[in-house]
């Protein structure tokens, strides 16, 4: 009897889930953890307006976003770096066209623990820290403490941007710690007084951002193109989304007044139209 009851409950639960009627339109977004907050906020906003649509967002890194789009297992690839020629070619080979939509601008903030007295760094100094030439805060006028270097993993678009904009392809210091998301870099830096890391603008709460070449990482300096490590954030789709589809209006949300406000509310810089 009890066994039957348990089965009944299980079936009932499933039935309840089935019972919630409505049409089903699904959009799958996969990719960058930096673009995550924008994608999640867009999804929330869009689903609120269109209750029949289910937008799922995965935060697995830009590289995975590109891969998912290449084998057509997502509709939107969120990326914090442009697609590489090899990825574009990969899509073309299977008869698809990579279409980029720049949804926002972002600055790569150099983050240290708030207790760090550092007043600023030059691009060259950052590079020296990440190549292991500068290994102690003492060398930068700080306390005598070995620098704990935190970086994103190589699947990350943020990593690739950092590599191009700061490292000039120089090899990273072998003691660098690689972590899997912007949030993880932020937490590692928050917990470690001697740490340095780099994160997207939306992930700077609780850490100290260091001016680079004398310029603070803020929305304003990114807009004015003064901040040296700025980059666009992308939604990639397979060709131009068909007119009138949910996919089209979702991807183009960033162009609307509301979309721009959401981008700003999540801590990023809306693109100039």
């Amino acid at each position, binding site marked *: 009897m009890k066994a039957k009851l348990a089965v009944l409950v299980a079936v009932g639960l499933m039935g309840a889930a089935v019972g919630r009627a409505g049409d089903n339109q699904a959009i799958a977004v996969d990719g960058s953890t930096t673009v*995550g907050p924008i994608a999640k906020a867009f999804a929330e906003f869009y689903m609120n307006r269109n209750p029949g649509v289910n937008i*799922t967002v995965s935060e697995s890194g830009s590289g995975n976003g590109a891969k*998912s789009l290449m084998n057509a297992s997502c509709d939107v690839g969120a990326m914090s770096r442009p697609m590489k020629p090899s990825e574009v070619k990969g899509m073309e080979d299977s008869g698809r066209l990579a279409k980029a939509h720049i949804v926002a601008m972002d600055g790569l903030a150099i983050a240290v623990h*708030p207790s*760090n007295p550092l007043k600023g760094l030059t691009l060259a100094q950052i590079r020296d820290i990440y190549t292991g030439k500068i290994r102690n805060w003492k060398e930068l*006028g700080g*306390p005598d403490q070995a620098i704990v270097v935190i970086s994103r993993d190589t699947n990350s678009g943020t990593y690739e941007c950092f590599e191009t904009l700061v490292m000039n392809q120089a090899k990273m210091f072998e003691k660098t710690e690689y972590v899997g998301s912007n*949030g993880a870099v932020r937490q590692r830096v928050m917990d470690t007084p001697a740490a340095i890391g780099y994160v997207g603008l939306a992930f700077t709460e*609780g850490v100290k951002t260091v001016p680079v070449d004398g310029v603070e990482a803020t929305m304003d300096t990114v807009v004015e193109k003064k901040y040296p490590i700025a980059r666009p954030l992308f939604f990639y789709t397979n060709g131009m989304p068909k007119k009138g589809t949910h996919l089209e209006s979702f991807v183009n949300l960033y162009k609307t007044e*509301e979309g721009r406000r959401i981008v700003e509310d999540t801590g990023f810089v809306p693109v100039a139209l």
Partner: protein
Amino acid sequence: MRTETRGMLDRAFTGTGVFSILLLVAALLVILAPLAVRGLKAVVFQGTVEHRRVLLDKFGRGDRAAVQAEIAEVVEARAPVYVMMDRFQSEVEAMPLSQRRKMRAEFQEVRKLVGAILGDRSGGPASLLMRNQYGATRWDRAQVKLQALLFAETWDYSDNSSFGKKVHTPRAERFSGTALEPMFGYFRGNIGRMLLPRRTVYWGFFTDDSFDSHLFGGIWPELLGTLYLAVGAMLFAVPAGILAAIFFAEYAGDSWAVGFLRTCVSTLAGVPSIVFGLFGLAFFIGVVRVSPSKSVLAGSLTLALMILPTLIRTAEEAIRAVPQTYREAALSLGGSRWHTIVSVVLPAALPGILTGVVISLGRAAGETAPIIFTAAVSVGKPLRLWQTLTQPTPALPWNIYNLATEHEAVEEVRHVQYGMVFALVGMVLLLNLAAIVLRARVARKLRA
């Protein structure tokens, strides 16, 4: 051996046994107690009027008239804050340019913090994101934000030989002599009137949809997703596992090839779960394309593969444990081989098989790695049954990880994270309990 020595050894052995059991219980308590306490804080907490507003607006729950009365009450209590802020705003406009810039930046920070506690100003323009529309829904978070509002955190870097020290300066000092100065005192004295904290029991945490990156609402999509994945995995794995076990135990014999197959199964049981995850991605999504994107189906299939070896081994052992006399009796009555297995051997082996099913079910519900690439997403709606064939879902194990590390505001969703852990552990415990009860009943029935 002398009797004395033997007795001593005996006692020592019993003592060690009892001690290790006690140790186990203590360890369980140390792990489970804080987990339960912290997890329950997602359900039982001091909820503010903002929490009740969310419930009313988003789920239509709560006494509308009462909540509206509360809202009217807090709007009145909050009014002086906005009056002071408005007055200060006009003061700033009249300041000399250099001072104006600095004050504006400071004021902007204050406004942000006030917004974080109180939400949108009533009657003002509405924000687009829920996180800005509503203030602090939980009293504990409101207190933290109040501290940030009252005391600016700065760092003293004067000691050059070490890292800086945290200094809290009252924000009121920074605005001394302005219209904003009294606001901080007012806030400190009247925060309770502005938020009306009340002991809240929010069972909806387990059955409500989540909103705005888990900052509001419950964890229903995750719970349901986990259930789908675990049950789905069992649907694929149990029949296949039992059939394979029957083959191994009853038909296979002892040839070289069968030994090799057995080794394969054992090896499969030792493969790390992330490997299954990557295999699922490459095979079910990449090659077979069971669904257009990640999906519950792909995740269930991957999980099924992962638990299959355990299922096969336990079921095989259970079938082997059935006394040979049972089979002989059935066969002597003229039953066919297959008939004997289905109506005599399997029922007798059922309790043992169920044990394997229970262990696997718990594992399927709790595994993260196999579903990362095949089924799990950070946000998504609760799925209807047929949607599981094509769509991915949030699921507890993955979302716990996501909220703990990747989320953009980890501190704000800490309670959700603990609530999820609690729900996951509770779910696995419940599933296990149910199966243990079931197993006991089946065993009793067989004996009778």
